[in-house]
């Protein structure tokens, strides 16, 4: 777990990746809307071996009061990993990495949520990573969008997210933990398909300008796959199985 294996073949001559996927294939994705009783809205996602729970509260009063804004509601996001979610036990206190991810997820969600309808209030999004396996921020963002919708908060669109990347000089969809550790580039993308807007974008690694364009293109296509699963999770909860 987490260690680098120098002998591992990330991509074989038939275009098959280390976990048996094709280059444009995501891991197994399961999204459930709801599930928590006390939260106003919630969602659970299994994205490969990632297991993430999201709870949403609000719009509600803001504490401390000085954080509130008379013109609009505010969005607060906490991304947090459980001590048992990773290979070596993680200190439960928030790390710099978790604080940064909380911020980028917040900024990715903000354009989707109609906060201006709820001045002086806060919407709190709590993300708990129960098990991590590469790509947690994308899976968390995907689940957070579903949880916000489940809470009945007015939204312009849902944000779907998945990472694309570069492994063995090839652009691939949905970077797993091994590919992230040993690969050449990792580009998490959050995208609102109905509005055609990218709201989360990061990159670790080196890409040529052409590869850069391809990477964004592959990621956006992946987000559209994820988006359908988000909608299906909400339909399953509110209209019964597969309710089209």
């Amino acid at each position, binding site marked *: 777990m987490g260690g680098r294996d120098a002998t591992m073949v990330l991509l074989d001559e038939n275009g098959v990746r280390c976990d048996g996927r094709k280059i444009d294939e995501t891991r197994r994705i399961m999204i459930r809307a709801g599930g928590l009783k006390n939260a106003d809205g919630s969602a659970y996602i299994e994205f490969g071996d990632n297991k993430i729970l999201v709870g949403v*509260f609000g719009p509600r009063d803001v504490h401390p009061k000085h954080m509130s804004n008379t013109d609009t509601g505010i969005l607060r996001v906490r991304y947090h990993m459980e*001590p048992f979610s990773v290979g070596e036990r993680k200190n439960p206190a928030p790390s710099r990495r978790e604080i940064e991810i909380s911020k980028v997820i917040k900024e990715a969600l903000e354009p989707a949520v109609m906060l201006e309808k709820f001045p002086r209030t806060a919407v*709190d999004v709590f993300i708990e990573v129960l098990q991590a396996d590469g790509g947690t921020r994308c899976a968390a963002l995907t689940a957070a969008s579903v949880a916000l919708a489940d809470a009945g908060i007015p939204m312009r669109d849902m944000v779907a997210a998945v990472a694309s990347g570069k492994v063995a000089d090839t652009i691939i969809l949905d970077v797993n933990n091994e590919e992230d550790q040993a690969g050449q580039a990792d580009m998490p993308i959050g995208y609102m398909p109905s509005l055609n807007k990218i709201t989360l974008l990061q990159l670790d690694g080196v890409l040529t300008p052409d590869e850069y364009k391809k990477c964004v293109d592959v990621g956006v296509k992946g987000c559209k796959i994820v988006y359908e699963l988000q909608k299906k999770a909400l339909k399953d909860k509110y209209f019964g199985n597969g309710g089209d």
Partner: protein
Amino acid sequence: MTSVSVIDELKKSQIFELLEQGKRVDGRALDEPREIKIEINAIPKANGSARVYLGDTEVICGVKIQPDRPFPDTGDRGLFICTAELLPLSHPTVETGPPQPYVIELARVVDRGIRESHMIDVSQLVIEKDKSVIGVFADNVVVDFDGNLFDACSYAATAALLTSKTPKWDWVDDKPTLVEGEETALPISTIPVSVTMGKIGNHIIVDPNGDEWASMDARITITSDSDGNICALQKGGIDGFTQDEINQCGEISVRVGSKIREIIKEAQKGSQ
């Protein structure tokens, strides 16, 4: 806010009036715990894990086992540390930031029940005396709150520990070295079970739900081991217990605890 317990006066008086007739708000007998559901191996990447539902209270415990330095005065014993945390998504009043006193009490009571029962024989968790030992961390996270976190966390930690697999380390070149492919169960000597009782008026109730939790005058958590001995106890709340009540609670905790121990054993068997 000093706890997650909020209740309106009407509900509180309803709970009390029902108890006067010997009834509970959810129809249970006074000494009847809620339904306990245990899912072993909820977090496959941990060394052991369990998700426990105690009624609508939901807790996940993950166990991590890794080499650690021993405490200076106990170089011949491994480490066992049990924690508990209320996730902010478990209830609207839970805040982020440093843990509140009631959460620290929760973690310490859960830890103490398991530690004092000597469930895990830590003398068998030594890699190299005074230099390196095996550390066992059982971290509980509360996912949904509906009262009685003490028992929910305790059952989750116990079930996770019972089904944990520990890797093996040898002392090579002055450092612990993992021996590939050798995993064994933890050295378990007993199965501790905590039973938490609330006192409302003069009534003692087992496993208070969220509304009962908010109406309690006092509470007591008693942990007993497989031999039926009492090994840890914590009283809380602003009212007191009479000596007779304390004796009664001791008897209830052993009797109810033995039934719950069977449920935990069933879950363990089901996972094998």
